[in-house]
């Protein structure tokens, strides 16, 4: 037996956390335990876990393979992952990776000879405002810490020094070259934020001990929840939320109250908070969970009361380790006070919150994929109808809402519908946390009412272009999956309708600014690398198409492009968008479609410069297969070496 009794006991305690008969949900937490024990997920341990969960071994293996954060071989004592997605790329992730490679003496994808450090590239880690950055996983504890703002070789050296000291994981709060208590005497604290005054969603952030119940309650927290639970009927809360017109902050912008109205009249019901913030350019939920977790908890209490759920889940992305610990601590505090658990606030109401860590899969931000993942399966989206409000988690009526949406509920219930509607527009009411990243002077989170002009966000709050000599070329208004706006569209007000009229969508309000220095070919290729990596593989167009697009873009980038490729890519994107199983397909190609439409000349110029003769690629001849009589009864035929990822995908991930 590979799993010790202590490990089994720990796994069993995770299994006990989930509703009876739903122990499969504990598969991700159990795999985290296993990975912490062994540094990876050995097959034998997987098989033993399968037995504990009463599954076939292949069911566990299939899950391990789906999630990026589980490894099938050891990754070193410290696993360093550099975010190379577009917002980080724009701010020098390539250089950061380069410095790390130099210092560690290894290439990315490798491990140091002593097994101490493993270096990999990583897709968006939700830290776009503090790019470039890395996340470091300490194998023996399973803790993850972010090291941010690694602008120079000195910063990288300082960070490695911290790791060498052995004290790097005393806390998992983010580290920056300045925010290092041992070196500079002060902690990093929350990253840059600002916006209107007073702020609501970010109102507590920046105060000392803002994450504690004492501070939250001192400033009026939980009073609303207490009042509502004592004085109101659930239906009345639903009505208020409907009237407020809150629209979902995760990306689709669906009215929250209307979603609640779809609930099937069956019980139990579940509230699932989508904290799988993975859309590149978006890093707002992380701040709330790290520095104001009680705001979210109060929102959950109110929302669960409204939809009559007694169990709420927070599905938080696996990389957000610090936010996870803050949430767990906050829930413990609230429970100790009687704000959660049985008979909360002295009423008859019960509520348990279970925090469930994802394990590295962008697709799990899609609500049905999130539920599938929460149930302990690979995070594939599922068919709608039935919609989650009818048959969601464990086939029970379920509401899935984004963290920020839930937080808005708190403020609506606290200050009223009329107050809420004084912000924003008729159809896009309320305030919003805009995530500003890319080539601006002051990237960060800015809480502003809807309909603030894009220009105001970038210039007034963001301080304008990062480099005064480089003009803004393009802006992604709502997270990487949304269509690009050009410099001429900077006066677009940031509300749902106006951004849509401008040819894009507000999405998750992740505003990524791209200036003249960046190559649109690289932006396109990086974008597709991300979607190729994150495609769940369920449906054909997305699974095959994203990889094909990435290959073409890689070839163009490396000087083998043909103008014809642009047409081929347009053709491919047309048959991914709207044809794939879930909205991921659209998200994967909208950016490229707008890029090709609006910056076509830049592509053509690049092709003309790098491949003037338009020489086509050499089509590789496939090897000749020998017929296999299948005579030997061995399970693996050794005549064919398993082929891993195409080297093309890996060797050129990083820029300069």
């Amino acid at each position, binding site marked *: 037996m590979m799993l010790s009794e202590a490990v089994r006991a720990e796994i069993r305690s995770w299994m006990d956390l989930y509703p009876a008969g739903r122990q499969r949900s504990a598969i991700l937490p159990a795999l985290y335990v296993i990975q912490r024990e062994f540094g990876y997920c050995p097959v034998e341990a997987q098989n033993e876990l399968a037995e504990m969960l009463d599954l076939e071994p292949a069911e566990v293996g299939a899950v391990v393979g789906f999630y990026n954060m589980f490894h099938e071989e050891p990754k070193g004592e410290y696993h360093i992952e550099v975010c190379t997605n577009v917002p980080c790329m724009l701010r020098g992730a390539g250089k950061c990776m380069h410095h790390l490679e130099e210092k560690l003496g290894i290439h990315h994808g490798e491990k140091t000879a002593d097994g101490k450090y493993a270096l990999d590239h990583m897709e968006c880690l939700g830290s776009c405002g503090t790019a470039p950055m890395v996340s470091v996983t300490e194998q023996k504890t399973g803790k993850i810490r972010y090291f941010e703002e690694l602008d120079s070789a000195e910063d990288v050296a300082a960070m490695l020094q911290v790791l060498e000291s052995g004290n790097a994981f005393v806390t998992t709060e983010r580290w920056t070259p300045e925010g290092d208590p041992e070196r500079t005497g002060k902690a990093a604290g929350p990253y840059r934020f600002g916006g209107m005054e007073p702020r609501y969603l970010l109102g507590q952030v920046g105060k000392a001990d803002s994450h504690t119940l004492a501070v939250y309650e001192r400033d009026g927290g939980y009073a609303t929840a207490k009042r509502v639970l004592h004085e109101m009927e659930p239906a009345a809360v639903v009505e208020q939320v409907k009237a407020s017109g809150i629209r979902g902050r995760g990306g689709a912008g669906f009215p929250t109250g209307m979603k609640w109205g779809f609930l099937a009249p069956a019980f139990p019901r579940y509230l699932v908070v989508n904290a799988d913030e993975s859309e590149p350019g978006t890093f707002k939920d992380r701040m709330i969970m790290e520095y104001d977790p009680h705001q979210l908890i109060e929102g959950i209490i109110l929302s669960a009361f409204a939809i009559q759920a007694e169990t709420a889940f927070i599905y938080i992305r696996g990389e957000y380790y610090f936010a996870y610990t803050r949430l767990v601590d906050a829930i413990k505090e609230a429970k100790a006070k009687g704000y959660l658990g049985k008979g909360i606030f002295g009423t008859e109401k019960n509520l348990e919150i279970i925090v469930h860590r994802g394990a590295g899969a962008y697709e799990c931000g899609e609500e049905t994929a999130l539920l599938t993942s929460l149930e302990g399966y690979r995070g594939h989206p599922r068919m709608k109808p039935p919609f989650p409000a009818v048959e969601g988690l464990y086939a029970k009526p379920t509401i899935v809402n984004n963290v920020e949406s839930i937080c808005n509920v708190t403020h609506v219930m606290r200050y009223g519908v009329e107050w809420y509607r004084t912000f924003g527009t008729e159809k896009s009411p309320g305030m919003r946390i805009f995530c500003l990243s890319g080539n601006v002077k002051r990237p960060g989170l800015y809480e502003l009412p809807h309909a603030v002009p894009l220009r105001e966000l970038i210039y007034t709050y963001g301080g304008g272009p990062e480099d005064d000599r480089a003009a803004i070329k393009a802006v992604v208004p709502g997270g990487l999956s949304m269509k690009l706006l050009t410099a001429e569209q900077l006066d677009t007000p940031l509300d749902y309708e106006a951004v849509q009229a401008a040819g894009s969508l507000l999405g998750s309000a992740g505003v990524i600014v791209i200036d003249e220095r960046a190559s649109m070919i690289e932006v396109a290729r990086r974008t597709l690398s991300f979607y190729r990596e994150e495609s769940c593989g369920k449906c*054909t167009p997305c699974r095959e198409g994203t990889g094909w697009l990435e290959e073409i873009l890689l070839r163009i980038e490396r000087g083998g492009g043909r103008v014809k490729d642009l047409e081929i890519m347009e053709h491919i994107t047309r048959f991914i968008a709207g044809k794939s199983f879930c909205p991921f397909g659209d998200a994967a190609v909208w950016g490229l479609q707008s890029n090709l439409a609006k910056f076509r000349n830049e592509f053509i110029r690049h092709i003309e410069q790098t491949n003037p003769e338009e020489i086509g690629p050499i089509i590789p001849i496939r090897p000749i297969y020998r017929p296999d009589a299948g005579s030997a*009864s061995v399970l693996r035929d050794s005549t064919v070496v398993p082929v891993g990822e195409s080297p093309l995908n890996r060797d050129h991930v990083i820029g300069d």
Partner: protein
Amino acid sequence: MSDQVTLTIDGRQVTVPAGTLVVDAAAALRIEIPVFCSHPKLDPVACCRMCLVEIEGPRGPMLQTACSVPVREGMVVRTDTEQVKATQEANLAFILLNHPLDCPICDKGGECPLQDQTMRFGPGISQLVEPKRRKQKHYLISDTIVLDQERCVVCWRCIRYLEEWEDKPQLGLFERGGETIIDIQDGKPVDAKTGGNIIDICPVGALTNRVARFAFRPWEIERTPSICNHCSIGCNVRLDSRTHKLRRIIGRENMAVNDQWICDKGRFAHAWVNHEERLTTPLLRKNGQLVPATWGEAVQYVADRLRAVKQQHGADAVGGIGSAKLSNEANYLLQRFMRQVVGTNNIDHRDGGAVAALPGGIPALADVMKPQYGPNPKVDTIFLFGVDPSEELPILDLHLKRAVRRGGAKLIIAHPRQVELTRYNGPYLRYRPGSEATLLNGLTKYALAATEGDKPKVEQMVGDVTDAHLADLCGVDPDAVQAAATLLATSKSALIVYGPMAARGETGQAVLNGLTNLAMVTGHYERLAYVGLEANSHGARDLGVLPTHLPGYAAVEDAEARSRFAAKWGGDLPTRPGLSYKAMLDAAGSAIKALYIMGANPASERPVWAENLEKLDLLVVQELFLTETAAKAHVVLPALSWAEVDGTFTNLERRVQRAPRAVRDPHSKAAPDWMILDHLASRLGSRWGYADEHAVTRDISESVPLYAGLTWEALGDQGLQYDAAPVRPRPAYRKVVQAPLPAADSASFALVTGTVLYDGGDLFRLTRQMANMAFGATAVLHPADAEKLGVEAGDPVVVSNAHGELTLQVKLDVQVPPGAVWIPESLPGAPVGALLNGSDAAAVSVRPVVERQAALAAD
């Protein structure tokens, strides 16, 4: 809401049942919508996106997947627009993007939906100039299934089959995105007993049949609709042959029998048909040696010797043994030969006369089936008594899992082993072998308690069974007995099934009586069923291969029936019941002087029988192989197999089905059973005059009222059921008395026998690719017992009792209860019959092989 929905597809109206999917509604109009992931027997997943069609909506036509959207009244669907066509082309381009296009060396080529759809719906040109993605090619995911990940289009059909039907998700999607692959967990091959079905439903060449690998191209084969001959389900199959050889077996749809699924034994274990060990010429013993002979010589020899034995010792010194593996025609003629030509009722087969069977079998297999689209099973509870479908009847196992998981059925299991189906949490009664009578009385008692109204007189017969008896004698939890009885008493329609393991000998009669009482008390008598396990167990009984009954279950003492057959056959028929299979073999060499054995191998069953056979004046063996029994014969007559001659078989639900000739070795002199017997009869002066095998089938249909009208032509390729009512005995309560159990001292083990699927008989063993799957000559123990004995898996042990002794390898399995040892039947080198006398429960002792202990001590 109406049950019928009318919609328009491509301008044409069609009316279909509500709930039908658009893709199936289109099929009703003969409009083909291309699909890969969609399969009529699996839940839709809509992942391949091939079936996108335009469906009119409030915001104009929307592309939706026809495989997942149910029809709505007034729905307007278009499958022929430019947009749909462009999408189909683009999707096929995506699907083919990383497909290796190695059709010339792919077994699927020629019968490949991917090829067909590419030709019909594909773009005809690829714009890909990048290198294709490489994955693993041709490796084994089980002993019989080869996977090529490059050819896979990730449609999930295989995964869904194993999940939705087998409830064993041993294949999964691994990795993610473009790297997504179908795979097993490392080191954990697919071992589901019907796993091979995933080959049939794979729409590309990703999953191929290792046994049939590179044996043909699909356009070269002849396809013969037939049935499987491995067990009594009678699954419909297709035999694919080329150049006189059987190349492949695949499933064939019969919604009353097997849906479209077959088990791996039926699919893969067919190498024996064309095996070089097959007998191809008659053999005659000369100077102690079996030497090739002509048919004329051999048949004349048999005729002369039979006549001589009969003259010297009388007709009852001759015995005939038929086979439940052989066709109705062969068995019918053998009993006719014994009764009419020889003049004796000494005719039986293994598990024949000694088994307390109830004619008719299961009312209808369809009653327990839950097809993908269709109502829930007609029976709401299934009680399995001493039957293990997972090992004995794998497709019944599949139906039951489905009935429980999807059809709301309940399962009750009484078995000495914790068989696989017990995982479904129905009441499970693990009884001690031999204690069946007490258990059944207990069940009846509790059933009575759960029934309202007047208690029938059976109450007094079972009243003395106490919970203490159940617990101490049977080893079952009285609460579980009560739960099972209550479930039976309260269910609307329960099916009660028992099999040969529980039906043999004295105990068998008690089991039948006890089950009859229980079924009557709970109101399910009409659904009490005995199931034989061999392909024609039911046909052999129906057609009188029994020492006590003529064809159609008329007793041999019944003068009217005798005269009816005599009128047909000619001559006088013997009146005295004959000897049973066991009695004939026990008496071989003493009272029995000559045996005619057709398709049976008793020498392998019990050492004592092997010895007896050598004492016979005449042993004739009609066989496919030179078995242990044939090797002792005076004459060996080479026969043809089920695949080589037209024949009919009767399955466990009385369905008579055709197995037509699919192949024949032109170099072999082997002859059909009917022809050998026909010739022999004429040498003994009885001219039967059958022109061909269909004439025998016709004779059966005319002579046996039960089989009236079941001619070859009438059976068609889905078979017909006969009406069992005339032969079902009228139920009556009977007192069931517990026979004394062998003394259970702490040193002894209860012997559990039974049948396993991969038993290693000739029909399995000769498929070399499956060699590793064979059960082997093993004694299976509970790990705790093994520890007590100081043995480990693989160690040799001696299992013995007063009757005999066997040396076997230890296997460990928690499904065997502590204090028991499981030795399945028909394992080569493990004649468990050596430990049995009759069919009574046996106690055995198990001890490690001494040499090993000594060797260890010496170390």
